[in-house]
């Protein structure tokens, strides 16, 4: 009986072991399933796929250290419907993610790119065919932009989702044909008819400028998301869930449809 218990425990440990094992990325990344743990420059040197294995946190690449730089080098990062393509953990402050000039797509993930860290720069590649393209989760001072010709599109829920973030900046992006919204600022995973953020979670101080969002429901500031600025964008459909836009500033945008007269 004791022997069987020992065997069982050993088997259980072996089974749990690999799920929590962390493989550190080398500076040349040639397969999914590694974690960046040193503040250095990393290059993705081949197309990556979820079938190569994932990190313990269910991502292709986790970034767990501050001041790392990751260059995608125009390679595809392909998921199988779950998990995260590139996950910048909360310790990955000051990460710089560079997509490249003519990039392949980050596609097929629940979240193509997720940042949980402050002061991150994402010069994004194509992000398409995910549930949500880019998620900024309770981040401060993240910056998302694209080079010309690159877009965030055909994601089934949101193109870009800012959930409880402050002072993030989204500019020079082309976001279109996403399921619920191109950009969603709020906590609901089902759009503005869902449950909004609580007062302690709300997003404020985010800035959106020089972007193109449309033609589907394109840029939404959820109820409670205030003190954001939306300026000089082309927006197919703009939505502000706050009465009289509260303290959000919508200015000099070219908008096809809006839900409120305070949106300009």
């Amino acid at each position, binding site marked *: 009986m004791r022997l069987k218990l020992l065997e069982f425990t050993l088997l259980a440990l072996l089974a749990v072991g690999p799920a929590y094992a962390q493989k550190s990325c080398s500076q040349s990344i040639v397969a999914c399933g590694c974690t960046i743990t040193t503040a250095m*420059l990393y*290059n993705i040197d081949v197309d990556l796929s979820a079938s190569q294995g994932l990190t313990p946190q269910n991502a292709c690449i986790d970034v767990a250290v501050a001041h790392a*730089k990751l*260059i995608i*080098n125009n390679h595809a990062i392909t998921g199988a419907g779950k998990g995260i393509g590139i996950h910048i953990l909360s310790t990955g402050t000051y990460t*710089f993610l*560079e*997509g*490249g*000039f003519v990039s392949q797509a980050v596609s097929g993930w629940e979240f193509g790119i997720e940042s949980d860290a402050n002061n991150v*720069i994402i*010069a994004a590649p194509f992000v398409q065919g995910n549930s949500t393209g880019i998620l900024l989760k309770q981040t401060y*001072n993240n*910056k998302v*932009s694209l*080079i*010309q010709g690159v877009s965030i599109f055909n994601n089934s829920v949101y193109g870009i989702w800012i959930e409880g973030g402050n002072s993030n*900046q989204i*500019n*020079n992006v082309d976001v279109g044909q996403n399921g619920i919204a191109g950009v969603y600022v709020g906590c609901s995973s089902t759009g503005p008819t869902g449950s909004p953020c609580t007062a302690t979670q709300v997003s404020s101080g985010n*800035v959106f*400028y*020089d972007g193109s969002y449309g033609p589907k429901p394109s840029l939404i500031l959820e109820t409670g998301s205030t003190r954001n*600025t939306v*300026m*000089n*964008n*082309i927006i197919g459909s703009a939505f502000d869930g706050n009465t009289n836009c509260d303290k959000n*500033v919508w*200015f*000099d*945008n*070219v908008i096809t449809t809006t839900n409120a007269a305070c949106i300009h």
Partner: protein
Amino acid sequence: MKTSSFGTLLLSTLLVASAGAQKVCSHSIISCGCTITTRGDYAVNADLSAAQGLTALGNCIDINAAHAKLFLRGFKLFGSGAGSIGVHVLPAARYTFIEGSRPLLTGLNNHSVSGWMYGIESDADNVIIDMPTVTGNNVAGVFLNKTYNNRIVGNGAVGFGASFNGRYGVWIVGGNSNQVNASFSEYNGIAGIYVGCSTTGPDGTPCSSAEASTGNVIYNYDSEDFEAPMQPYGVVLEQNSVRNTVMGNNSGTHTQFDLFDGNANCANNVWVANSFQTANQSCIH
């Protein structure tokens, strides 16, 4: 004699008062010579000129309050050269946002901030400059003076970027953790982007170690000329400017170097994924 002294004193007082007088900007700005002193939204609603008068500090618009937003809206800011600045973000004006880029709504596309010593100068931290066309300024299009976490962006290849300026398109002096991306510079006198203290390029006197610029990130930016006179340099990190990142940029056809690092073996600067033809060191990629 007493009357004369009193008159002189009165005149001096009036002159000093006049020199120090500050005209506060209204939320609709229609002439040069005012200072933004309260957070809020301010829109330029006419072409502005130095001939309309300057601020007490000698500029077209000074910003001296945190969290102000200034919309240039496609209008021009004409300077008269000399020592004045088009828009000057003073040290107290943290979190200023200058929206100068492609004026979608007004349809004006020939907007520019030109003819100043610096088109736009920021001395404050956490400023966003969505760059208008900044051309034909005596020294630099945009000047970051010892700033932290400023962000200069443009709107891709729209307009003329930071071009045709006397020395630099964008000049960062003693700044830390600033970011420059999504625009372009061409036909400037010395360099498209210059990080350092010298007013004469990398041959001049560099910053001291205490003044040096670090942690700046320059990415997805173009610096390219197509005909003479071409810029001598594209992007320059001056000697002692270290721990900066230059990544994913396109720089070409300069008469000296497309990319230049004044530090031995690039020190701790990172140059990667750039497209260029000439560089002064093999550590530049």
